[in-house]
């Protein structure tokens, strides 16, 4: 009833190509952003920031990065954890080696390192496709994690083998390190997610994004209309790894604070893949929704099973695995295009409501 586009006329191609062509959508997004940037920091408590909100934002950024590669460019990657590790360890080396470095610069350089590594491991994508490539990306996963574990230089020869986020300031406010306020970390993660979501959306509705999707949908036809496969795929690997690397740095510096390589193991890669499948392949919104689902679902389940039914924590953990697995299958059966598609369908229904057609 209130969600109608009647009376909103587009007067140019620019208006037709806007991200949210419908006025109500624009208002909704502005409201959500205002809520996230202003209301949440004032009201949420530390548990919400540390256990739910910050990890959600970090994983959403990771999922966004992987979605560029897998959802848009069609290259399945199981090496996400490895590329996150590159970002995290680069960030650690940068902030400890150059304590004066601006944090934004440190995040960006960490992303660049990850992008470079991503390009190297993307090279085989010219010759191998599909699941063969997916397995090949596991090489990146295992090799990188091994490397950061074995070479002491990466963790500054810390005898415990862990890396700890050093306390660093931005605009005179402590952002990283144990003493930094959870709300500040949350805002940092939120800002980065907002910026990268916008940039990604722009990219995928431009020529670069179309060439990615062309390669994804039919690589031979894409090449015949003049898209260079290697260049296009490597750009996808680079940009995806860049975003994933920054997310890895966030996971380390804003969420966990202190990590070992085990934090970046293959389970993480699979979890991120789950996020984009459940959220929706090839959808910016889907990446965010998928991350929200996979962060909230286990917490809700544990609360329900342990808190609600008084189950033991270990058996609850096993049951959680079962439920998670079953839910994934269930979601794939009900809507293989993910939550983003459900959202779209709901919006289309709402547009017509209360009329059926």
């Amino acid at each position: 009833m209130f969600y109608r586009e009647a009376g909103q006329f587009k007067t140019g191609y620019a208006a037709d190509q806007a991200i949210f062509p419908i006025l109500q959508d624009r208002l909704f997004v502005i409201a959500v952003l205002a809520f996230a940037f202003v209301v949440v920091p004032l009201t949420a408590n530390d548990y919400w920031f540390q256990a739910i909100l910050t990890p959600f934002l970090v994983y959403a950024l990771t999922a966004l990065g992987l979605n560029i590669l897998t959802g848009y460019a069609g290259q399945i990657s199981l090496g996400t954890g490895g590329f996150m590790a590159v970002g995290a360890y680069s960030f650690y080396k940068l902030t400890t080696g150059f304590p004066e470095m601006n944090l934004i610069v440190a995040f960006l350089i960490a992303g660049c390192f990850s992008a470079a590594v991503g390009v190297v491991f993307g090279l085989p994508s010219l010759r191998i496709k599909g699941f063969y490539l997916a397995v090949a990306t596991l090489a990146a996963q295992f090799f990188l994690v091994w490397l950061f574990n074995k070479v002491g230089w990466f963790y500054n020869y810390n005898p415990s083998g862990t890396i700890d986020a050093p306390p660093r300031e931005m605009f005179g406010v402590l952002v990283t390190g144990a003493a930094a306020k959870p709300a500040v970390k949350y805002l940092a993660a939120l800002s980065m997610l907002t910026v990268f979501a916008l940039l990604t959306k722009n990219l995928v509705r431009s020529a670069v994004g179309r060439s990615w999707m062309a390669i994804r949908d039919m690589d031979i036809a894409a090449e015949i209309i003049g898209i260079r496969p290697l260049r296009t795929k490597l750009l996808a690997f680079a940009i995806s790894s860049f975003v994933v690397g920054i997310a890895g740095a966030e996971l380390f510096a804003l969420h966990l604070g202190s990590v070992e390589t085990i934090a970046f193991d293959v389970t993480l890669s699979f979890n991120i893949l789950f996020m984009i499948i459940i959220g929706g392949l090839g959808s910016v919104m889907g990446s965010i929704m998928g991350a929200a689902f996979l962060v909230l679902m286990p917490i809700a389940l544990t609360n329900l099973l342990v808190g609600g039914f008084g189950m033991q924590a270990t058996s609850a953990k096993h049951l959680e695995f079962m439920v998670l697995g079953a839910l994934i299958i269930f979601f794939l059966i009900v809507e293989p295009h993910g939550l983003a598609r459900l959202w779209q369908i709901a919006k289309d229904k709402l547009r017509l409501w209360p009329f059926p057609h």
Partner: protein
Amino acid sequence: MAANGLIPQKKEGGVLLKAEDISLSFGGVKALSNVSFEVHEHQVLAIIGPNGAGKSSMLNCINGFYHPQEGRITYKGVTRKQMKPHDAAAQGIARTFQNIALFKGMNTLDNIMTGRNLKMKRNFLLQALYLGPALKEELEHREFVENIIDFLEIEHIRKTPVGKLPYGLQKRVELGRALAAEPDMLLLDEPMAGMNLEEKQDMCRYILDVNDEFGTTIVLIEHDMGVVMDISDHVVVLDYGRKIADGPPEEVRTNQDVIDAYLGVSHD
């Protein structure tokens, strides 16, 4: 030149593409043997022949998807060595496919926009900002694509995912994508296969309009002899990978070898 006489006499230019002694085989199977022919500028050339005659393979050689083991292809006066498909596209060769090869995850508009990709020069950092030169470029090309959409009369399916379109419309979108590249030479692989009469007539009209208005050279593969005789200036006939006839439609129609090939006279 054109058999139906309705189309005004047009001037054919010099040789645009020259194929000499093309031979192509997969393992032991010969797909093409010693095929030679010329394509002139502004010509509509049809390649015909029974199934498995090597017609699609010939197109694949022209746009660099297959690399013939023997023979030379000279395009715009340059004899090429190994050429990649995207190089061919960069030099103005566009094509459509026998089995529609649209990008199923995108809508009509985006599919046709991919055809403009070669002409879009802004780098990805500008595109990520979607501002200034990148936005201007995007809108310019959108306008060009809208003209194609008008020309092909597919305005109503602009935002429809191509996977949901009926066959005839998909073929039309594919033609649109090829046209978006502003090709000098357009390769059409069975553009009218599986269409009803009305759709065929529409498609013929588009092909002739493109040829007339933009002077685009067209090489097409088609099975419908009526269509071939009507719209082509020149016909090349392949059978079992060999060229058995080459000439204007009315001449090819009466060629005994061609009649034999189509009626299935045994080969010695």
